[in-house]
């Protein structure tokens, strides 16, 4: 494409974003304001992530986009084709082959390496937002390290539900300093944030903030001594690949109460199936009733 500059944004804009990224990397967990641009997609669809990706992409990169772990959902497909058209970079769905991965609400199951960059789409970067509505006050709280309020939220969870019911966007403390919103990833993914070899960048387009975790950063999920943090997931194995260690989506299969649990990371699931693993509802499993036969059985009884 000759109509667009490489990766859509002009060079000055990318330079401005790179400065914000570098500042973010220098102060892990600190929200760096940046002059977010209008992107050809609505806010909430990853405008922040797209701008960060545009700023870090080089022509040699191989790009992967996941949306809730999946490579084939609308958001992932359209952002991938956006960069195919505007940057002409190679794309992939395989986690290990990608050098830049833009993600919405998941961290890939496969461990990332030092050669990779993980870009998160962030809707609300301020972890204290719903507790303290004033931006001037939350900034002051960050600068003075006044994070008692964050625990008030967790206290309320336990008081109301008997356990910490926050299951996504679970607040973390970075290098013992800044409290950070890890974007709405399930808390199952929180332990992967800490000590990760890959660079992690967080872009919030509407809120005009960029923050970052350099490689091998200490990230601790907040908790109480008598109610420790727990990385939870559905207590099942993947119906297609049989994985017990991956984060699962619950899929409703019919209106008779039928449901199955499948890996939310589609690349991970496909990789396992290609390697010969199968789950109890997979077509390769000879003992598994297929969905149609199951329905027939129900008719007969």
């Amino acid at each position, binding site marked *: 494409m000759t109509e667009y500059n490489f990766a859509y944004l002009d060079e000055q804009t990318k330079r401005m974003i790179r400065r914000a990224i570098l500042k973010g990397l220098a102060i892990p967990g600190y929200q760096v304001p940046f002059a977010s641009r209008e992107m050809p997609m609505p806010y909430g669809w990853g405008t922040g992530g797209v701008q960060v990706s545009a700023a870090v992409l080089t022509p040699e990169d191989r790009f992967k986009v996941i949306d809730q772990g999946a490579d084939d959902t609308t958001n992932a497909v359209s952002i991938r084709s956006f960069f195919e058209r505007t940057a002409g970079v190679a794309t992939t769905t395989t986690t290990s082959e990608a050098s830049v991965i833009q993600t919405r609400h998941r961290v890939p199951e496969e461990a990332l390496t030092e050669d990779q960059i993980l870009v998160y789409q962030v809707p609300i970067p301020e972890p204290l937002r719903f507790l303290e509505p004033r931006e001037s006050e939350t900034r002051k709280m960050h600068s*003075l390290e006044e994070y008692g*309020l964050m625990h*008030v939220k967790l*206290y*309320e969870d*336990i*008081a109301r539900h008997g356990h910490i019911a926050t299951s996504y966007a679970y607040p973390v403390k970075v290098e013992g300093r800044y409290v950070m919103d890890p974007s709405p990833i399930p808390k199952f993914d929180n332990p992967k944030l800490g000590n990760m070899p890959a660079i992690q960048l967080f872009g919030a387009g509407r809120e005009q903030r960029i923050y970052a975790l350099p490689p091998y950063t200490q990230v601790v999920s907040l908790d109480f001594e008598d109610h420790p943090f727990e990385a939870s997931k559905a207590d099942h194995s993947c119906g297609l690949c049989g994985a017990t260690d991956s984060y699962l989506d619950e899929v409703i299969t019919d209106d008779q109460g039928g449901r199955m649990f499948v890996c939310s990371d589609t690349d991970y699931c496909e990789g396992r199936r290609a390697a010969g693993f199968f789950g109890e509802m997979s077509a390769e499993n000879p003992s598994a009733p297929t969905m149609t036969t199951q329905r027939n059985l129900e008719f007969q009884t």
Partner: protein
Amino acid sequence: MSADLSPLLSVKGISKYYGAHIGCADVSFDLYPGEVMGIVGESGSGKSTLLNCMAGHLAPDAGEVVFDTRADGPKDTVTMSEPERRMLGRTDWAFVHQHARDGLRMGVSAGGNVGERLMAVGERHYGDIRGKATDWLGRVEIDADRIDDRPTTFSGGMQQRLQIARNLVTGPRLVFMDEPTGGLDVSVQARLLDLLRGLVRDMGLSAIIVTHDLAVVRLLADRLMVMKSGRVVESGLTDQVLDDPQHAYSQLLVSSVLQV
């Protein structure tokens, strides 16, 4: 008054101007540990401005507020760094607002409200926090089974008592109160005053109470300052000032109270 002779709080020449207007001018006094100081005056006399200057909510244009800190001894809180001042604000100081809504988090349960200061100073054990919150709700006469209710479901008097519990849970040494009984009906006021008097005596608190209600200072305050147009016109022992007012304005104030 305790045997400790150094003042807990020493205010020297505090002035605050709003443009050409005087908020309060050249106010000085010492507050000793365990002492309760009342500040009375009509609306607009600069009581609240003075209180906010002392509590660090407003920056005074002149003067010093020297507080006897636990760690470093007497320190001027006007010139100390903001993190230090805010730390004081949630440990050794407490501020009771006139409207409980200003001092409470209305979207957070009563227990969470009381526990916030504990968590702000690093308490990280849920059971302990809840235990202390329950204890404090009991001390301000709120049923323990209301601990998970939001303050929006509380009556005005309960909200005010909850605000007091929330402020006193970290064991402060100095409490600033801005019209603590304002907006409450008389029987609730009486109960709240009774409670406050008990807490102040039991915990050996020092307090500065701003009010326009002379009955409140009669009951709670050891000493009294009368303010008019931003200046202190008379000060002394409470009974002395109320029973034998010297300044014309103090006389007016005392004689304005309806005798039932």
